[in-house]
């Protein structure tokens, strides 16, 4: 019939059951894709970019994997989106959130097949999510008062986060690094103050945290390589020709001698600028922009360390650490705040020379130098460390902590099961399904570790029916273990975000009963 032709030619429309099928299939296949990376024995993925050079990334990070995929299925896009948000918001749990949402949808698919209306499923899921969250809230441990204990909590969280990554061999070392770095921030979540420098070479164990600040730059020729009690001027100014900014100005001369004169004036101008800078009584000058040879020579003459072309982040961080302000004009030296540090020296890491500022005034910033066998290892190490740092910095603000290793899921599942028993009506099926989806996470962790998941999870469930149980899956020994003793912890904020975003995403996909895909935009330059 002609009536169906209300859309454009290439557009497609899927309705009712078919639409639901399409979104379930899409979402579940995404889940299955990242599922195997979950847990301490999860596997990595190799991603090859389609861009030039076909760069390869090896990673275990859910958000990174999903970001790199080109997906056409709209439901899958929803899942990718939640994973990205999880990354932005709490930094970790990017795989868990997708897996949980996928499991929720998998359960929903069964319910829909059993002729339960999606809206009923949604309201059941909502009740279950609320109940699960309350269950977690009851079991959280908050060690805010006790600094000593809190620090060990942080340490445990860092180790748990890192244990699923490439750094798991040296997790203790890196957990220490991450905790130290975050503790220096003193509650701020500004991770920019933590600089991560990657230098290939050495082993991962050689990575270290430096209390000072390391700038990946070289010191100008003929300038001192080591300065004690440095006064630093951090600047953002042109040290090349210093253009005349008045619009329409141009140089027009009629003889060679005039050119020379103007050149002289220009040089004079620069000399003056340098003199003004020197007037600040500094012995180190760091500029964001280039420093030309001439001013550099002037600085060298004055015995001042001049560093050019430090990028914007570097400048901001340097200003932050040394307590100086970023200056662009130099007319009144008395009111410009200078940065201070005890020692500036050139150090060698591997084969590269770096500038090291130590003994800085503000202890907030620090630098982590990562060493490793190859770029891939370093990139993955950075991502893992970033995850750990994110989680830690969020935990410093929200100090509530939970046990890990599938413990929270089991606690939630138990409570949700109770709720299902109490709830009359069709919703109880949905609530029950929610609990099954929660149990799927420890099951996957066990499966990924090559353990007998059915047996383990059943044991775990039995354990959890005792009061105040701390049982979780101990992947290393392959049995049910006491998570408190093993020191496996997770941040409450991460778990909560996983739970809520996953439910929200599942809800969104469930509500859809029609998918309309517009005709793709025609591209001229198709390859």
């Amino acid at each position: 019939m002609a009536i169906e032709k209300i859309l454009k030619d290439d557009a497609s429309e899927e309705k009712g059951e078919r639409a639901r099928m399409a979104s379930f299939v899409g979402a579940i296949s995404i889940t299955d894709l990242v599922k195997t990376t979950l847990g301490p024995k999860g596997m990595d993925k190799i991603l090859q970019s389609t861009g030039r050079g076909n760069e390869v990334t090896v990673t275990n990070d859910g958000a990174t994997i999903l970001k790199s995929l080109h997906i056409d299925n709209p439901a899958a896009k929803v899942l990718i989106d939640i994973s990205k948000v999880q990354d932005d918001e709490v930094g970790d749990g990017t795989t868990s959130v997708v897996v949980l949402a996928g499991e929720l949808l998998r359960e929903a698919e069964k319910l829909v097949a059993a002729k339960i209306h999606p809206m009923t499923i949604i309201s059941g899921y909502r009740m279950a999510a609320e109940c699960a969250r309350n269950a977690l809230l009851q079991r959280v441990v908050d060690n805010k008062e006790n600094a000593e204990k809190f620090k060990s909590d942080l340490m445990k969280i860092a180790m748990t986060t890192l244990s699923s990554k490439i750094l798991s061999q040296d997790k203790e070392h890196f957990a220490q690094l991450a905790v130290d770095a975050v503790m220096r921030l003193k509650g701020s979540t500004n991770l920019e103050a933590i600089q991560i420098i990657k230098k290939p070479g050495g082993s991962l164990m050689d990575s270290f945290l430096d209390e000072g600040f390391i700038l990946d730059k070289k010191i100008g020729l003929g300038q001192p390589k080591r300065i004690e009690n440095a006064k630093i001027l951090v600047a953002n100014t042109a040290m090349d020709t210093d253009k005349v900014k008045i619009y329409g100005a141009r140089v027009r001369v009629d003889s060679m001698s005039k050119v020379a004169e103007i050149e002289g004036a220009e040089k004079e101008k620069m000399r003056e600028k340098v003199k003004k800078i020197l007037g600040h009584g500094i012995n180190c000058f760091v500029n964001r922009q280039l420093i030309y040879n001439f001013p550099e020579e002037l600085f060298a003459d004055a015995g001042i360390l001049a560093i050019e072309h430090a990028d914007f982040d570097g400048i901001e961080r340097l200003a932050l650490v040394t307590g100086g302000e970023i200056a662009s004009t130099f007319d009144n030296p008395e009111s410009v705040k200078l940065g201070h540090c005890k020692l500036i020296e050139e150090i060698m890491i591997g084969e590269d020379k770096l500038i090291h500022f130590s003994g800085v005034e503000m202890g907030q910033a620090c630098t982590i130098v990562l060493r490793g066998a190859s770029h891939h290892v370093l990139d993955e190490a950075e991502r893992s460390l970033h995850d750990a740092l994110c989680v830690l910095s969020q935990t410093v603000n929200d100090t509530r902590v939970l046990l890990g290793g599938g413990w929270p899921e089991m606690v939630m599942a138990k409570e949700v099961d109770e709720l299902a028993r109490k709830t009359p009506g069709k919703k109880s099926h949905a609530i029950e399904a929610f609990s099954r989806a929660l149990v799927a996470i420890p099951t996957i962790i066990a499966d990924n570790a090559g353990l007998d998941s059915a047996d383990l999870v059943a044991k775990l469930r039995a354990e959890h029916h005792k009061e105040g149980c701390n049982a979780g899956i101990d992947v290393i020994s392959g049995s049910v273990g006491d998570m408190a003793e093993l020191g496996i912890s997770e941040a409450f904020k991460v778990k909560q975000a996983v739970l809520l975003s996953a439910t929200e995403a599942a809800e969104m996909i469930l509500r859809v009963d029609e998918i309309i895909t517009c005709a793709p935009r025609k591209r001229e330059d198709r390859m």
Partner: protein
Amino acid sequence: MALAFDEYGRPFIILKEQEQKTRLSGLEAQKANISAGRAVSRILRTSLGPKGMDKMLQSPDGDVTITNDGATILEQMDVDNQIAKLMVELSRSQDYEIGDGTTGVVVMAGALLEQAERLLERGIHPIRIAEGYEMASRIAVEHLECIAQKFDFGPTNIEPLVQTCMTTLSSKIVNRCKRALAEISVKAVLSVADLERKDVNLDLIKVEGKVGGKLEDTELIYGITVDKDMSHPQMPKQIEDAKIAILTCPFEPPKPKTKHKVDIDTVEKFQTLRQQEQKYFDDMVQKCKEVGATLVICQWGFDDEANHLLMHQNLPAVRWVGGVELELIAIATGGRIVPRFQELTPEKLGRAGLVRERSFGTTKDKMLYIEHCANSRAVTIFIRGGNKMMIEETKRSIHDALCVARNLIRNNFIVYGGGAAEISCSIAVEAAADKYPGVEQYAIRAFADALDAVPMALAENSGLQPIETLSAVKSQQIKENNPHFGIDCNDVGTNDMCEQNVFETLIGKQQQILLATQVVKMILKIDDVISPSDY
């Protein structure tokens, strides 16, 4: 295709390239049009009501939108058919005029078309049908006025407004925290409303969203948010009792419009020029400082040197603020937008109680909050949510709620929702039909049947038996002579909408009926469709 021949039997060419056009005429054309219109309304039918489903739309660029809002669905659907486009227009005009009921109006039009098709088959002339519809719509609109109730609220008694907004929000994905969002919307509208003139300028309400956090974190800010940060990382992050200079001129040397050249041919000139240049910056910053500004908001960027000077003078600044935001800031802070430094005077500064920078999550997203403004008439609703689609959908839902609140302020009559108003109108139109002599009677009766379509769809979407429920409610309305009975979508146990607090605005409902009738009339009057063939 009809061809005309002259006396020698040669065909006249009436249409250019006649062979390449397809042409439908007469009953065939009307039927094709009606079925296209119905196809559109069928898509939206399942989105109606609190238990309505969402639609997932993938745009030509691959972006995904998940929504329940009729106008948005149709807009993104990218329809090709001309009649379908009319339906899209219909939904859009309801959106512009009322802001809510965009799904209902299309479902209504679809039902009217369906009824018209039956009448056409019986051989009733389309114009007569159109006239009958017109009469019936007049009866329905008048009847709505009879059953409408005046609705009292004031700045202190906002509960009724909140209830109405909740009715609107309950059909959206955000119904989890509809109460909170409804309150936010009502407060926002009331703070910008002009209760004397009964008007609300919705432009003063800015709806901003940022991914992350929970939906419950959505907040109402009595002020403005700007997605910018201080131009210099070391400027203070919080300013109390700020006096704001709002500039549209860059911190740069002037650029006269006329073409000119400054020639440098001697060393002296070079030097004077240099000094001049430095003076410019100094003057500019000094000017701002002199009038007493403690914050500079600039539409353009500024040079590193100017930036440092500002920082040096302890004058925080924000750069690259968009034009619309600049205007809003000016309205909120009571400041004037200043296009030239020379015109800066203390009176032209805006005032705000608190300006602060806030950062979110683990990324370095920062936003600037300008609060406690001199003129608190501009407010911002700041939405948080799990993902981008959620935020977009929440924005649309909030927009609907805002529109409803505005309509109530304009005209504080309400009718009962849940299909109660439609059922009541249907009864009234049915009764009135018998009084009209002539063929129109049939059309009027058809109109009454079409009005039943909305409650029917509501019942269907809520998983109830549509015909059974509708007839039960209808007989109840007639028996008790009470227009408050509607469809019990949420399974509360009562179908008295007065008890369930399900309201809709009178003007919204009237507009729905009028707009739907208009479009249907237009479609019915078409009896010839000429379009180019597919290739």
